C-alpha cells in the first residue's frame, strides 16, 4: 500500500498494511528542519510548500499538513502578525473589539492572486503521500480576531457577541476549507484548539463551539474526510466531537487513548497522540520508542488508528526524534 491507500483504508474502516504514520508536520517544524527560517516561509507560500515537501521526503512519514505562507494565507483574517526568525508567528493585535467591529470580519478570497498555488505545489510534490489541508474552526477564528482574553471574557459578559462573532467567522472556515479541497488535498483538519477542556468547560464547548463545528464538518465532510483537532484535554467532550460526524478525531497527549476509544466507540478514527513537546522535543530516542509502543498497544487493535503527534511538532524539536517516531511506527505498526 502507498501512504494514500493506507490512509484511505483506515478511513473506510478497513485494515491497512501498517498503521499510517502522519505526525503533525506543519509550518512550525518544516522550515527549521529544512534549513529555512520561519519568517521566510510564513510570509512566502512557495517557500513553505517547498519546506513541507522536503520535510515529508526526509522523514518518510505518510503525510504532511498543508500550511500556506501567511502572506498568502488569510488564516488570521487580517489580524496583524509578527514573525521573527524561528519564532512562532504571533497575532499582535485584535480585529474586533466590540459589536461595532463585526463588519471588519471579511471572508477572504482564497483564489485571488494565486493564493492557493503553494498548496497545489505541495500536493504535486507529495506524490502518493497524504496532504492534509488545515483550516481554523469558526470558534478559533472568532477567538483569534477578538483576542483570546476578550473572547473568553465575553462568555459571561457578552455571550451574544461570542455567538455573532462565530457566525461572522463561519463562512471563512467553509470558504478556505473548500479552497483547500479544490486544491487537491486528501483530507481537511479543522483546528479547534481553544475548544479544549483545558481551557473551557464542556458546557461552554456545547454552547459556543460545538454548533458551528458540527455545521462545518457537515458542509466540508461531504467533500473530504474531516479531521477534528482539539488541543490538550479533550476527553470530556470526545463523545460530542464524534457526534459532529468528523471522520477522524485528533487527540492530544494528555488524553489516554484507551479511554478515548471507550468514549467514542469503534466507528471513528483516532489520530494521536505522542507528546510533541515532552517526548518529541525534549525526550530521548528511548522515550520516543516507549511512547510509540504504548500508543500502538492502546489504539492499533481493531484498526481505525493513525499514529501521530498530539499537536504540531515544535520548531526546535530534534530531527532524530521525529525520524524515530516514524521508524518505531513502522516497526511496531504492522498489522
Amino acid at each position, binding site marked *: 500500500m502507498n501512504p494514500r491507500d493506507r490512509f484511505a483504508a483506515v478511513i473506510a474502516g478497513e485494515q491497512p498494511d501498517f498503521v499510517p504514520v502522519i505526525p503533525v508536520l506543519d509550518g512550525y517544524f518544516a522550515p527549521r528542519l529544512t534549513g529555512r527560517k520561519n519568517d521566510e516561509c510564513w510570509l512566502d507560500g512557495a517557500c513553505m510548500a517547498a519546506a513541507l515537501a522536503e520535510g515529508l521526503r526526509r522523514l518518510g512519514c505518510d503525510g504532511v499538513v498543508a500550511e500556506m505562507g501567511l502572506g498568502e494565507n488569510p488564516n488570521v483574517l487580517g489580524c496583524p502578525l*509578527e514573525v*521573527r526568525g524561528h*519564532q*512562532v508567528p*504571533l497575532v*499582535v*493585535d*485584535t480585529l474586533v473589539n466590540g459589536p461595532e467591529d463585526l463588519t471588519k470580519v471579511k471572508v477572504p478570497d482564497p483564489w485571488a492572486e494565486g493564493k492557493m498555488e503553494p498548496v497545489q505545489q505541495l500536493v504535486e510534490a507529495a506524490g502518493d503521500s497524504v496532504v492534509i489541508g488545515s483550516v481554523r474552526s469558526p470558534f478559533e477564528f472568532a477567538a483569534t480576531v477578538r*483576542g483570546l*482574553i476578550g473572547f*473568553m*471574557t465575553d*462568555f*459571561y*459578559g457578552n455571550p451574544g457577541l461570542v455567538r455573532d462573532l462565530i457566525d461572522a467567522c463561519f463562512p471563512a472556515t467553509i470558504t478556505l476549507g473548500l479552497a483547500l479541497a479544490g486544491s487537491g488535498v486528501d483530507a481537511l483538519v479543522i483546528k479547534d484548539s481553544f475548544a479544549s*477542556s483545558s*481551557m*473551557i*468547560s464542556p458546557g*461552554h464547548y456545547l454552547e459556543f463551539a460545538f454548533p458551528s463545528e458540527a455545521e462545518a464538518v457537515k458542509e466540508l465532510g461531504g467533500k473530504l474526510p474531516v479531521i477534528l483537532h482539539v488541543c490538550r484535554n479533550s476527553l470530556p467532550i470526545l463523545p460530542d466531537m464524534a457526534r459532529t460526524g468528523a471522520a477522524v478525531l485528533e487527540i492530544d497527549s494528555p488524553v489516554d487513548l484507551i479511554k478515548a476509544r471507550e468514549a467514542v466507540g469503534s466507528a471513528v478514527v483516532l489520530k494521536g497522540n505522542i507528546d510533541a513537546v515532552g517526548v518529541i522535543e525534549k525526550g530521548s530516542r528511548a522515550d520516543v520508542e516507549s511512547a510509540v509502543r504504548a500508543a500502538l498497544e492502546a489504539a492499533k487493535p481493531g484498526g481505525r488508528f493513525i499514529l501521530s503527534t498530539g499537536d504540531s511538532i515544535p520548531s526546535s524539536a530534534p530531527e532524530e526524534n521525529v525520524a524515530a517516531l516514524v521508524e518505531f511506527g513502522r516497526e511496531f505498526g504492522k498489522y
Partner: protein
Amino acid sequence: MDLLSRFQKAIIDGDADAAAAIAEDITRVAEVRPDAIINSLSGAMETVGGKYETGEYFIPEMLRSAEAVEKALSLLDPYLFERRRDFSGVIVIGTVKGDIHNIGKNIIVSALRASGYEVHDLGVNVPAGKFVDRVKEVNADLLLLSAFTTSTKQALVEVLTALEEAGLRGRVKVVSGGAAHSEELARDVGVDAFASDVKSTLAVCRELLGKRGH
C-alpha cells in the same frame, strides 16, 4: 459574613457588580487597612486558581474573577493610594513585546501601588528600548516584565540585553512573571526573580528591595 469575606466571595464568584459595590462600601466605611484588602484579594485569587487546578473553573471563570478584581480595584485605587506608606521603591512594569495580555499585569500594578510603591506602567507589547528608557528616566529599582505566553521568551532576552547594553543591568533588578510562564523559563532567561501571582510578586519585590537596602 464580614465585608472582606463578602468581597472575597464576590471575586471568587466572578460577580463584578457585587465586588464593586463592596469596594464602594469599603471606601465609605474607611476602616479597612490596605494590607487587609490586598490580602483578601490575593486570597480570593488563590482560591480561584485552586478551582482551576481542580477542574472546577476554566479560563472564562478565571477571567470573570479577574474582571471583578479589576472593577473593584479601579474604585479602591484612590482609597489605597491615600493610605499608602511612603514610597518604598520605584518600579517600572509592562507586558513584553509580542504580548498583548494585560489583566494579570493590571492587578499586579494596583497591588503594588496599594503597597506603597511608585509604579510606572508602560502597558502591553512594550519594546525593549522603551523599558530601558523609562528605567533610566525614573531611576527604577525594579523592572517587572509580564509575559503571558512562553513564545515571548525572546522578548524577555531582548530586554535584558538592552539593559546590559545601556549599562543598567547592575542597577535594576528584573522580575518576570505571567500565566504560562515558569520558574525554569525565568532561570533560562536570566532574570533576578520569578513571580507567579500577586502574593509572590509582593514578596519578591519586598525581598529584592530589602536586599538593595530600601
